[in-house]
């Protein structure tokens, strides 16, 4: 008979026996050894009917098809740009995937993107040897202008974005900044005032730290509103001084 040993929604460690018996099926982050299903990655356990899987709680980004990421141009070749994806593998952005403009052969590619530029791009394909191709030809993909780049833990990205982007749009509205979150854990923040950007970073860091504690949305909005109030009182004081 199948018997579950570990509890659902708890952390499992590599080598830990999750379930005994052939009824259960191993999925992501688990493997079968004889009768047992064993974790092979540090993660949180989820059980969907008979299928057992774990969701990672640590680790670097691993490139996947259709992910939108923020990448940095690190090299320029004859037919495109090589970009760093914040993972073990760099990606290739070829000229035909970069722009609809006609680029003549032998033209200076730095006119479009130079080394050190950050781009939001989408992964078109990943081969078995982890050769990664990216494109800029999809809505919303572009070169990123002035702003700040911060790095967050990859497995926290869904929490920073929130359900249908609710969390990130709240931060955007409250701090009046533009934010782009890449699946690879790179986040671009740009605002007209440096303190707005700093507040947005503070909020993102708070999400990263406390995403597993319930009531996260309330705490974030509290943080953002408190700071907005401070600003208001400050400006009030200033106007009084003038009087």
């Amino acid at each position: 008979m199948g018997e579950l040993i570990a509890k659902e929604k708890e952390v499992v460690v590599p080598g830990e026996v999750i379930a005994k018996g052939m009824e259960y099926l191993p999925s992501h982050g688990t493997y079968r050894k004889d009768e047992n299903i064993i974790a092979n990655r540090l993660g949180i356990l989820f059980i969907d009917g008979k299928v057992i899987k774990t969701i990672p709680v640590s680790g670097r980004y691993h490139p996947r098809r259709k992910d939108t990421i923020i990448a940095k141009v690190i090299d320029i070749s004859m037919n495109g740009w090589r970009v760093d994806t914040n993972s073990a593998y760099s990606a290739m952005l070829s000229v035909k995937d970069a722009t609809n403009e006609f680029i003549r052969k032998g033209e200076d590619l730095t006119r479009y993107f130079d080394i050190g530029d950050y781009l939001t791009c989408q992964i078109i394909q990943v081969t078995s040897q982890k050769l990664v191709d990216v494109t800029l030809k999809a809505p919303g993909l572009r070169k990123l202008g002035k702003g700040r780049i911060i790095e967050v833990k990859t497995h926290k990205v869904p929490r920073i974005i929130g359900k249908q982007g609710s969390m990130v749009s709240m931060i955007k509205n409250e701090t009046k900044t533009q934010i782009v979150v890449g699946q690879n854990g790179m986040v671009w923040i740009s605002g007209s005032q440096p303190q707005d950007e700093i507040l947005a970073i503070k909020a993102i860091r708070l999400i990263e730290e406390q995403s597993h504690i319930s009531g996260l949305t309330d705490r974030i909005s509290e943080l953002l509103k408190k700071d907005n109030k401070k600003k208001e009182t400050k400006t009030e004081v200033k106007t009084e001084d003038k009087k």
Partner: protein
Amino acid sequence: MAYTKRHDNRKMDETRPIEAKVGVIKRAHGSAYFKIGDTIAYAAVYGPRELHPKFMQNPERGILRVKYNMLPFSGQGDRVRPGPNRRSKEIALVTQHALEPVLNLEDFPNSVVDVLIEFPQTDAGSRCAGICAASMALADAGITMKDLVPSIGIGRVGKQMLVDLDYYEEAYEEESVADIPLAMIPTTEEFTLLQMDGDVTKEQLKEALILGKKACHNIKKVMTTAIKQKFQEGVKKK
């Protein structure tokens, strides 16, 4: 005089007190601290990341690179000369061989996982402490691996088999001493490290493996709870 009572009043099959912690180095992708008695090991894992020089890349699987280093003040009084030497290179290699069988490195072709192990203080059994710390750090770094690799030194002083020798016992002069560091994969009970300094009979070696097996299963429990601790601490903060 036969060695019938251990100098620190431990039982013959008792390890020194163990302390383990995960996530001690902020900038590393995974890290761990493992203390057994007076031997302290820190392990940091970086990667998987791009491997240079390029000729070292393996298109079929990622490679594991281990560095073992004792800090100058870590020894028994004499200054340990810094930098790699014959001993540290050998230990790094056996550590790599001890860890490789559990890692699913075929998930990361052409890349490298770097494991750096540092010892601020040693009192015998450092390669075993290093392997324990490294396997915890690898798990913390989110590398797919079949199991943790606990490791322990088994020894013989006179005719007595002992678990986890410290430096006093390893350097015991009144009787002959043998020292067998070993590492085991608990789910399959396969040994990935088995070395010996000194000599033992066939029966004594068998006894050593049985003692080692038992100790490794216990160490794995300590390592598992230590890794889980990192995530429970956050929940308590509420």
